[in-house]
């Protein structure tokens, strides 16, 4: 199974666990039950609660058991590391206890469910349920210690550095304070704490670096002291585990200046005691802190120690994490060694042949003896030469910009390739009066323009552009005037006729008295001569047209005739005594008519209100103005 140490479920404390499950039971199962329900319903209700609780406990505990890694299933490096950190026995015990608890809970539930079948009242069933839940919770309360321990393990486990045991790794080891963490800080992006006291690094740290397009792990270990295996503490054991299980290149770091507090001979002792762990691993000894003391500055015996090491065939490189002297060299050497080692191991294995059988490097055979060297164009050779010598390069825009500072203006027009180079700074016109000049550009434009102008001349000569005489003689003008008069008259007549009310009551034409003045005026407008028409028929005072039939004298007089109507005084003169009164009367009349006229009414009977609620008086905010005009 693939274990992900970061995805282990949180292990709750016993108290929390119990609370969680019980409250869940209360929320997720039905809560209402009454005495008078049918017994099977009551039983079912309580059985459900018991089973629900059991199910929850079971699920959660199984989850814990599956999440935590089985020490037999994971990589031995991690198994050993966990043993070192958490004690294998304790771990296994804790998980075993959890398993037992789970089984016990299952049994309890089974028993009580069986008993519930014989419960005959609500009270009995309820008590059974209470007992069942109580027992389950007690079982769990007893697991308090295991659960606490497992929670701590889980937290620590999720914080372990992700070391891939199978990839390329460099392992740093040595006494405390020799400079392992400084080295890893220099080589990778890791930021391990570096302090002057021993055991600053208390656990394994991983850093990553790139070399030859491959990813490399660099593992920093806590320092190891020189005593036998049994006496080692947890911190040192982590380092030993790493050394034992990771197939890595080992970098044994020695402190030449003995600032770590241990002499070179002591360091050599340690080296020899760990030697068995370095079997089958490429080894490099780093003589660190060489900025303080070089190998050449060492005492005789120490130099002999170093010489012995070299004589045995181990690479010794002088390094200084401070001045970065030799760091790169160590890195490359270690990586190369490890790569070679890994390749060798793979070659010795069986899987290689499968791949090798499929690989084939095809080399084309020569077809003749002709020499075909690679072709390098001259320009490239010149460029390469220019790159090598520090000849002054051509002036770049950037240089110009820096020179001129604030005055610098980007002028791309100076790079243009025109026919006349002195035109480069011209401001090119683009638009004229709504036309694009670019649409007219044509090398032959002058020729075409000439043709056009010639054509135009011809046209002018042919008289196309002569404005025609307004060959409007007097006659036409008269005709036009008359026609416009006629049209006007017609329009007026039409408007007049529109004003008539054709749908209302109609008097016959003869009922209206035709005024002599209007008649004469209209006729004279039409061109007829209406002077001295005093003895025309219409100018006589009208006689009564109705000839009375011969009646008896005693017959009473019938309705008044027109002749009488003619003799009656007109309304605006009846009752008026003299001119002074007439004036006054006229003024009064006009005064009473003023308002009506202003509103455009026909008379006092025209009372129709066209717009009872005009919008402008009823809408909008009252800003300034009264309601009569807003």
């Amino acid at each position, binding site marked *: 199974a693939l274990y992900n140490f970061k995805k282990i479920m949180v292990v709750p404390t016993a108290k929390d666990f119990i609370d969680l499950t019980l409250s869940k039971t209360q929320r997720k199962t039905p809560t209402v039950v009454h005495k008078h329900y049918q017994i099977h319903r009551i039983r079912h209700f309580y059985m459900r609660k018991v089973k629900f609780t059991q199910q929850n406990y079971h699920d959660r505990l199984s989850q814990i058991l599956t999440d935590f890694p089985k020490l037999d299933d994971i990589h031995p490096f991690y198994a050993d590391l966990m043993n070192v950190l958490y004690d294998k026995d304790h771990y296994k015990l804790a998980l075993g206890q959890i398993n037992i608890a789970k089984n016990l809970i299952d049994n309890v539930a089974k028993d009580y469910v069986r008993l519930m079948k014989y419960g005959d009242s609500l009270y009995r069933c309820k008590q059974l349920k209470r007992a069942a839940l109580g027992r389950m919770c007690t079982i769990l309360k007893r697991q308090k210690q295991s659960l606490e321990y497992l929670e701590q393990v889980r937290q620590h486990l999720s914080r372990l550095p992700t070391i891939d045991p199978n990839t390329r790794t460099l392992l740093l080891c040595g006494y405390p304070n020799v400079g392992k963490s400084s080295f890893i800080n220099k080589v990778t992006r890791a930021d391990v704490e570096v302090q002057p006291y021993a055991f600053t690094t208390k656990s394994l740290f991983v850093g990553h670096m790139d070399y030859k397009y491959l990813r490399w792990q660099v593992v920093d270990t806590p320092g190891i002291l020189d005593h036998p295996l049994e006496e080692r503490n947890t911190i040192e054991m982590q380092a030993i585990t790493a050394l034992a299980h990771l197939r890595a290149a080992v970098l044994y770091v020695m402190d030449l200046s003995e600032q770590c507090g241990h002499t070179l001979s002591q360091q050599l002792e340690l080296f020899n005691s760990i030697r068995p762990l370095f079997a089958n691993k490429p080894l490099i000894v780093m003589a660190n802190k060489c900025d303080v003391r070089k190998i050449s500055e060492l005492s005789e015996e120490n130099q002999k120690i170093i010489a012995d090491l070299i004589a045995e065939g181990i690479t010794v490189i002088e390094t200084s994490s401070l001045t970065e002297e030799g760091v790169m060299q160590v890195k490359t050497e270690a990586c190369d060694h490890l790569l070679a080692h890994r390749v060798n191991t793979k070659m010795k294995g069986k899987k290689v042949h499968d791949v090798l059988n499929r690989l084939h490097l095809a080399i084309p055979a020569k077809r003749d003896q002709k020499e075909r060297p690679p072709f390098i164009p001259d320009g490239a050779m010149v460029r390469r030469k220019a790159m090598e010598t520090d000849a002054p390069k051509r002036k770049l825009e950037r240089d110009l910009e820096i020179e001129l500072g604030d005055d610098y203006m980007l002028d791309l027009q100076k790079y243009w390739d025109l026919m006349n180079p002195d035109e480069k700074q011209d401001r090119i*016109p683009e638009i004229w009066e709504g036309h694009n*000049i*670019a649409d*007219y550009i044509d090398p032959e*434009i002058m020729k075409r323009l000439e043709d*056009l102008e010639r054509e135009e001349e011809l046209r002018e000569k042919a008289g196309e552009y002569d404005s025609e005489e307004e060959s409007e003689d007097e006659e036409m003008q008269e005709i036009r005037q*008359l*026609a416009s008069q006629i049209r006007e008259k017609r329009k007026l007549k039409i408007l007049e006729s529109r004003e008539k009310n054709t749908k209302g009551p109609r008097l016959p034409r003869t009922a209206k008295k035709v005024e002599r003045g209007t008649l004469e005026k209209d*006729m004279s407008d039409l061109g007829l001569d209406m002077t001295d028409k005093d003895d025309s028929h219409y100018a006589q005072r009208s006689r009564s047209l109705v000839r009375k039939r011969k009646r008896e004298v005693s017959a009473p007089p019938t309705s008044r005739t027109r002749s009488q109507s003619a003799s009656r005084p007109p309304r605006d003169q009846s009752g008026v005594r003299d001119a002074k009164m007439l004036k006054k009367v006229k003024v009064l009349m006009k005064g009473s008519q003023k308002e009506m006229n202003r509103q455009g009414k026909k008379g006092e009977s025209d009372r129709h209100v066209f717009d009872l609620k005009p919008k402008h008086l009823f809408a909008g905010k009252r800003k300034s103005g009264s309601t009569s005009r807003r």
Partner: protein
Amino acid sequence: MRIEKCYFCSAPVYPGHGMAFVRNDCKVFQFCRSKCHKNFKKKRNPRKTRWTKAFRKASGKELTVDNSLEFEKRRNIPLKYNRELWSKTVEAMKKVEAIKQKRQSRFIVNRLKKGKELEKAADISEIKKNIHLIKAPHAGQAKQLEDKMVQKLAEDVEMDE
């Protein structure tokens, strides 16, 4: 910088004005104002919308084929700048513009000439039909008769003498 032509009404679209619409088939439509844009969105045909230049040209109300119109053409191959060519072009443009205006106005005037004839005919027919509205048919007749009578009398008198 270019002055484009409005797709709908063919008015010049100056930079900073109007809108451009790019269709999925990569055809670009420029509009001079939202009026044209909205009409376009309503799928109206500019050749049938009376106020556009497209309609006017399609229905023969404006000059369409003419040499002076051939000068302004969108060219796809740019030429390198050459001062004298550019200055000559600007001068030529002015002259061509003048000629073009003359010809366009002449075209329209010719088109409208027919209308004047029709107007005259309408006036004459109007008079013939409705002269009675402003002049009574027998308007000067009385006077004429009188004059005739007077003339006749005078003649008679002369004859007698």
